[in-house]
C-alpha cells in the first residue's frame, strides 16, 4: 500500500512537471490568444460577491471575445483563479496567474487579498485593475495596481452625509472583527458623522458569527436612529432576519456589498428600511441589463453563481466594465506585453461604460465623485433608485 502510494505520488510529480514545461509561455500573447487573469474569491467569506463579479467579467468576455491590436485580431482567454478570500492563499493564487503568462489581472472582490497580492504583481510587473476593492491601501504603494471604483473614505463620507441629511443623529456601527473592509468603512463613517455633529456607537462581531440577536438588541437599547453595518452578504442576510424578528424600528444603512439580489431576497416581505450606496443602478443601461439576463437564463452555471435569479448586483456590472477597460488598455498599449499595458494605463480614458466613464488619477484610482443611493422596496424585493450623493 505504501509503495503504491509513493509510486503514484512520484508519478503525479513527474506528470505535472511535464505538463508544466509543455504549456510554458513567457510573454503575454501566445499565438493568437491573449490571457487576462481573473483574481477573485470563489469560496470563503467573500465567495458570493467574488462569483458575481466574475460573472460580469465572463459576460464581457462573451460579448467581446476578441481584441484587435494593431491589425491583428487576438482571442481573449480568461484565466480564473480562486483566492479563497484568504490572505495566505492569495499570494500563491496571484503567482499562479503571473506564471500562466497573463497580460493583466482583474480583481479582487475584497481588499485584503488585493493588498496581499500587490507585491506579487509588482515583482512581476503585471498590471492589475481592482474592480470593487475600495480600501485606499490597495493602490497607495503599488504602481501596478489601478482600480475603477470609488474608495472607502469617499463612500464612508457619502453614507455619513446621507444619514445626517436624512435627520439621523445617533448611529449604531457594526463591523466584523478582522475584516478590513467593514472596519474601514465604519471608521470613515464615524469621522464624517461625528464631524457633522452626530453620535456613534461602535461594535464588532467575531468571525463566523451568525447570531445577531444581541447586536440588534444593543442598537435598540442604546436608542440609535440608524443601524449602519457595511458587512459581507453572508452577515447581511442574518442581520436582516434578526432585524425583522425584533422589529428593529430604524433604517439599516450599508455600503456597496449589500447591493446584491441576496439581500433583496432576504428583505422581501418585511417592513424594513434598507438603504445602500453603490456603483451602479439597474436600468441605467437597458441594453447591458437585457443582454446579461438573457445570458444567465441560458447558462445554468451562471445563474447558480448569481444566487439563482437574474437580478443584477452592482459588482457584476463593475466586472463587465473592468473587462472593457482591460480591452481598451490592450488596444492603447498596442501589445499584450504586461509592461506596455502598464505604461498605457495611466493615461487611459474609457467612455461608454455601464457604470460611468473611467479615468485614473496619480495613485491609479478612478476619478469618481458620486455614488448611487438605493433603497430596498421590500414589498417587491427590488432596489429602487433614490438619488446620487456626493461627498461634499
Amino acid at each position, binding site marked *: 500500500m505504501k509503495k503504491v502510494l509513493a509510486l503514484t505520488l512520484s508519478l503525479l510529480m513527474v506528470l505535472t512537471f511535464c505538463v508544466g514545461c509543455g504549456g510554458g509561455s513567457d510573454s503575454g500573447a501566445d499565438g493568437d490568444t491573449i490571457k487576462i487573469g481573473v483574481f477573485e474569491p470563489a469560496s470563503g467569506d467573500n465567495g458570493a460577491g467574488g*462569483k458575481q463579479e466574475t460573472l460580469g467579467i465572463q459576460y464581457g468576455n462573451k460579448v467581446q471575445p476578441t481584441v484587435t491590436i494593431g491589425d491583428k485580431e487576438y482571442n481573449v482567454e480568461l484565466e480564473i483563479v480562486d483566492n479563497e478570500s484568504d490572505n495566505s492563499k492569495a499570494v500563491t493564487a496571484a503567482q499562479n496567474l503571473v506564471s500562466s503568462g497573463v497580460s493583466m489581472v482583474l480583481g479582487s472582490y475584497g481588499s485584503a487579498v488585493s493588498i496581499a497580492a500587490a507585491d506579487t504583481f509588482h515583482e512581476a510587473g503585471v498590471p492589475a485593475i481592482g474592480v470593487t476593492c475600495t480600501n485606499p491601501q490597495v493602490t497607495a504603494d503599488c504602481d501596478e495596481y489601478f482600480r475603477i471604483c470609488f474608495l472607502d473614505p469617499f463612500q464612508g463620507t457619502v453614507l455619513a452625509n446621507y444619514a445626517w441629511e436624512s435627520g439621523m443623529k445617533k448611529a449604531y456601527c457594526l463591523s466584523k472583527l478582522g475584516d478590513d473592509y467593514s472596519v474601514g468603512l465604519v471608521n470613515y463613517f464615524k469621522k464624517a458623522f461625528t464631524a457633522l455633529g452626530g453620535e456613534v456607537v461602535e461594535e*464588532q462581531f467575531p468571525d463566523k*458569527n451568525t447570531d445577531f440577536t444581541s447586536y440588534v*438588541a444593543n442598537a435598540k*437599547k442604546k436608542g440609535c436612529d440608524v443601524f449602519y453595518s457595511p458587512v459581507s452578504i453572508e452577515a447581511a442576510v442574518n442581520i436582516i432576519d434578526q432585524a425583522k424578528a425584533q422589529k428593529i424600528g430604524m433604517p439599516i444603512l450599508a455600503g456597496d456589498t449589500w447591493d446584491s439580489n441576496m439581500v433583496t*431576497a432576504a428583505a422581501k416581505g418585511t417592513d424594513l428600511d434598507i438603504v445602500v450606496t453603490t456603483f451602479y443602478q439597474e436600468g441605467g443601461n437597458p441594453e447591458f441589463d437585457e443582454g446579461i439576463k438573457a445570458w444567465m437564463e441560458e447558462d445554468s452555471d451562471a445563474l447558480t453563481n448569481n444566487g439563482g435569479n437574474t437580478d443584477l448586483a452592482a459588482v457584476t456590472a463593475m466586472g463587465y466594465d473592468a473587462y472593457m477597460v482591460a480591452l481598451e488598455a490592450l488596444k492603447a498599449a498596442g501589445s499584450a506585453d504586461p509592461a506596455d499595458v502598464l505604461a498605457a494605463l495611466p493615461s487611459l480614458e474609457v467612455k461608454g461604460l455601464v457604470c460611468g466613464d473611467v479615468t485614473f488619477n496619480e495613485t491609479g484610482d478612478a476619478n469618481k465623485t458620486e455614488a448611487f443611493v438605493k433603497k430596498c422596496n421590500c414589498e417587491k424585493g427590488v432596489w429602487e433608485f433614490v438619488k446620487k450623493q456626493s461627498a461634499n
Partner: protein
Amino acid sequence: MSLISSWLPYILAGIAIGGQYALIAIGYTMVYGILRLINFAHGDVFMWSGLIMVYLITVMPLWLSIICVIIFAIVLGTTIEKVAYRPLRTAPRMSIMISAIGVSYLLQNVALYITGGLTKTYPSISWLQKTVDIGPATTKMVTLITPILTIVLVVGLVMLINHTKIGMAMRAVSRDFETSSLMGIDINRVITVTFVIGCGLAAIGSVLFFSNYTGINPMSGAMPGLKAFVAAVFGGIGSVPGAVVGAFIIGICENIIKGAGWTTFSDAFTFVLLIVILMVKPTGLFGEKNIDKV
C-alpha cells in the same frame, strides 16, 4: 424591573441558542462517554442537516423533509462511525481523533464544492419564524419553542438511558468498555444507537438553529460545534443533563457579554470558560471522576 426588561432580549436569545447548543452537545457527550472520542465531525453533521433541508424543501412538503433530514443525519453519522471510526477502534487515541478531524475536513470541503461556497438561505418555516412579543422584547417563535422542545427531548433521553435495556447497555459500556463486551453486550450496536441518538438530536437542533439564524455555509457547523463541545465539557463530559445545563449557561453568558459591550470577546469567552473549568474542576459540573489504570 427596568433592569429585567432591558436584559430580557439577551436572556431570551441566550436561552434559545443555549437550547440549540444543548441538542448538539448531547451528541458530543454521549459519543465521548462511550468511545472517549471528541467527534470533531459532529458539528459538520449538524451543518449538513441544515444544508440538506435547503435542497429537500424544493421537492417535498415540510413535514416530510424534516423527517428526511433526521434520517439523513442518522445515516450520515452512523456511516461515519462505521467507515472512519470503527476500523481504528484498537488504534491509538490520537489516530481516531485525527480521523475525526479528517472527516470534518472532508464534510466541509464537499459542502463547499456542492454549494460553491455560497451562503444558502434556510427555508422559512412560518410558524417557527413568526414574531412574538414577550413583555418589552420582540423575538421569534422558535426562541420560545427551543427550550421547551429541548427539555422534553432530554427528559425522554434520560428515561431511555435509565429505564430501558439499551440504556442500561449504554451505561455499562461507558463505564467499562471491555468488561461489558465480555458480558455479552453487543458493543457495535450500542455505539450505533449512540450515534443515532446524537445525530438525530443534532438534526432537530439544526432545524431550530437555522430557523433562527438563516444563513448556511460550509463553516456554519464549526463554531456551534466547538461551543457545544465546550458546553459538554463544562457540564461534565459523559453526562447528558450536564451537557444541557452547560449549554444553557454558555448560551446565556455569551449573549449577556455581547449586551455588556464586550462583543469582541464573545467567542473568546467560551474558551476562557473552558480553560477555567478544566483547571478548576476538570470533571465538569456533573462529571464522574475518572481514574487512569496502569
